[in-house]
């Protein structure tokens, strides 16, 4: 590998070397005809990344079902809208400025504005922060889907009481001032990338980041008025299972697509994404049985998501067998995190902190334990004689926690000073579907009259 790739983001480290070899094998004429500096467009990579991008985009509607099923029927549309709306506002913001700040040349902390409004983001594999074999515009879209779901993840902590407009303002700005810099640190050649932090598909950037923002948001917005007074039960558990299933499906694009190529690294990430949640699901179910005698469906859905979260940073760095182990280990802190959270006064309604914050942290740290150079060609972890990697992972996680926590807090305080974050008592008790959106999820047949 060329020395300059040392400073490249890990998700790129693997594929640049491997792909160069592949390209030369596959089309020697092309390799001879071109200078080594200009990477060619690869149709196999492009096809896989087109599919991956669509898969990751599907995760946001999937999240809407996962979250929507977990709330009461009077708030299901509001909850699902909190995910769906990210597709619009955060998606557009990404094209305007987010992409450039995250993934264009800048300093160690943030990218520049050279790619703002997609200036120079074309159909050739050139002009991106890393060498590509897919159209630059496709790389931008793939990264957009990550930003969209990360912002949407936060909503789980504040559903059933946060007003919709301040939420919208919050995630739109958050995607620029929190997500973009953290993505730059890890994937845009920023300081964590230079330190050699491993984050294959976003354990730190996506899950720790969203988990901490969720914790801060739950604290700033405050608990639901009937929190701890009534049973705030899921209204549609089949939705939860549907959402978890679709999330897993989409996650193959999330993790396996993060290889940015149709190659062995993608296949490794695919296998770990297959196996880690299996490990988590087994342990989660056993914990359920030991604790209450009954394996729960909501527990199974949650376990799958925790496994997916945990394997995200590790996906292309660890062996498939270690993925099962990683998933199994990750079940324990999140499982008990959920139970402990329920005893506190923190109304993190859908347990974003326990699932994504804790799961993402455990995954990022275990990446530093299980990383295996014979699989990833980049770095070994603690288990394979490189304890330094573990320390780098600790720094990366702490950096994301501190930055996301502080900036999310300031942002919510500013928005809160301009408009109330928390819905009024009447709106909250009526349900946010009718009070915020003027719609009901499950409409009664009779008694409605058309106006005008």
């Amino acid at each position: 590998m060329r020395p300059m790739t040392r400073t490249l983001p890990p998700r790129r480290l693997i594929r640049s070397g491997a792909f160069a070899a592949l390209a030369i094998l596959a089309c020697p004429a092309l390799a001879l005809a071109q200078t080594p500096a200009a990477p060619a467009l690869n149709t196999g990579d492009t096809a896989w990344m087109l599919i991956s991008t669509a898969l990751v985009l599907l995760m946001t509607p999937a999240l809407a079902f996962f979250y929507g099923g977990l709330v009461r029927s009077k708030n299901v549309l509001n909850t699902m809208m909190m995910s769906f709306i990210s597709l619009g506002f955060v998606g557009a913001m990404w094209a305007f400025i987010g992409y450039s700040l995250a993934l264009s040349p800048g300093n160690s902390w943030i990218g520049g504005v050279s790619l703002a409004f997609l200036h120079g983001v074309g159909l050739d594999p050139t002009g991106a922060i890393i060498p590509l074999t897919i159209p630059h515009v496709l790389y931008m879209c793939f990264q957009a889907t990550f930003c969209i779901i990360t912002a949407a993840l936060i909503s789980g902590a504040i559903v059933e009481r946060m007003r919709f407009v301040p939420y919208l303002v919050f995630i739109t700005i958050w995607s620029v001032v929190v997500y973009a810099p953290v993505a730059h640190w890890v994937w845009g050649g920023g300081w964590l990338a230079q330190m050699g932090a491993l984050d294959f598909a976003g354990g730190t950037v996506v899950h720790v980041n969203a988990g901490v923002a969720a914790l801060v948001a739950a604290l700033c917005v405050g608990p639901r008025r009937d929190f701890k007074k009534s049973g705030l039960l899921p209204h549609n558990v089949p939705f939860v299972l549907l959402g978890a299933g679709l999330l897993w499906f989409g996650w193959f694009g999330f993790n396996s697509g993060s290889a940015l190529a149709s190659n062995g690294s993608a296949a490794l990430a695919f296998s770990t994404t297959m196996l880690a949640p299996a490990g988590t699901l087994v342990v989660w179910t056993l914990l359920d049985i030991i604790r209450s005698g009954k394996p729960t469906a909501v527990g199974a859905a949650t376990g799958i998501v925790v496994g997916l979260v945990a394997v995200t940073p590790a996906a292309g760095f660890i062996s498939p067998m270690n993925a099962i182990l990683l998933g199994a280990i990750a079940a324990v802190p999140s499982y008990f995190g959920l139970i402990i959270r329920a005893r506190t006064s923190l109304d993190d309604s859908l347990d974003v902190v326990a699932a994504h914050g804790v799961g993402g942290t455990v995954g990022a740290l275990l990446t530093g334990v299980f990383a295996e150079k014979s699989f990833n060609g980049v770095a070994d972890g603690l288990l394979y004689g490189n304890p330094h990697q573990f320390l780098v992972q600790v720094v990366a996680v702490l950096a994301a926690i501190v930055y996301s926590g502080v900036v999310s807090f300031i942002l919510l305080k500013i928005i809160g000073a301009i408009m109330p974050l928390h819905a009024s008592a009447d709106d909250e008790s009526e349900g946010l579907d009718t009070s915020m959106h003027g719609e009901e999820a499950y409409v009664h047949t009779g008694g409605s009259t058309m106006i005008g």
Partner: protein
Amino acid sequence: MKLVKSIVRPNKVDDVRDALEKLSIPGMTVTEVRGHGRQKGHTAIYRGKEYNVSLLPKVEIEVVVSDDVVDEVIAAIVTAARTGEIGDGRVFVLPVDHGYNIRTGERDMV
């Protein structure tokens, strides 16, 4: 013996249940219903058309109590379910001839 039938706001059910528990009322039957009294519905917009949804979700709570506690029960329900706004609901009291326990076949001595 009286049947006390209350139609209350959905978010007041727990308060009513707690109030009835304090009076040692042993059971209750709860039904999700829709209806309207003087409370106007809300406006909904679907696909560009505006609708007035006049039948709003309410919860009907039925308890059967002995004559000597019926006033106390009504007072407890009214206090627990009241917000002071239009749409708080109604309480109806109906006479009950007698009741039977299905498991034992015995006539109820409420």
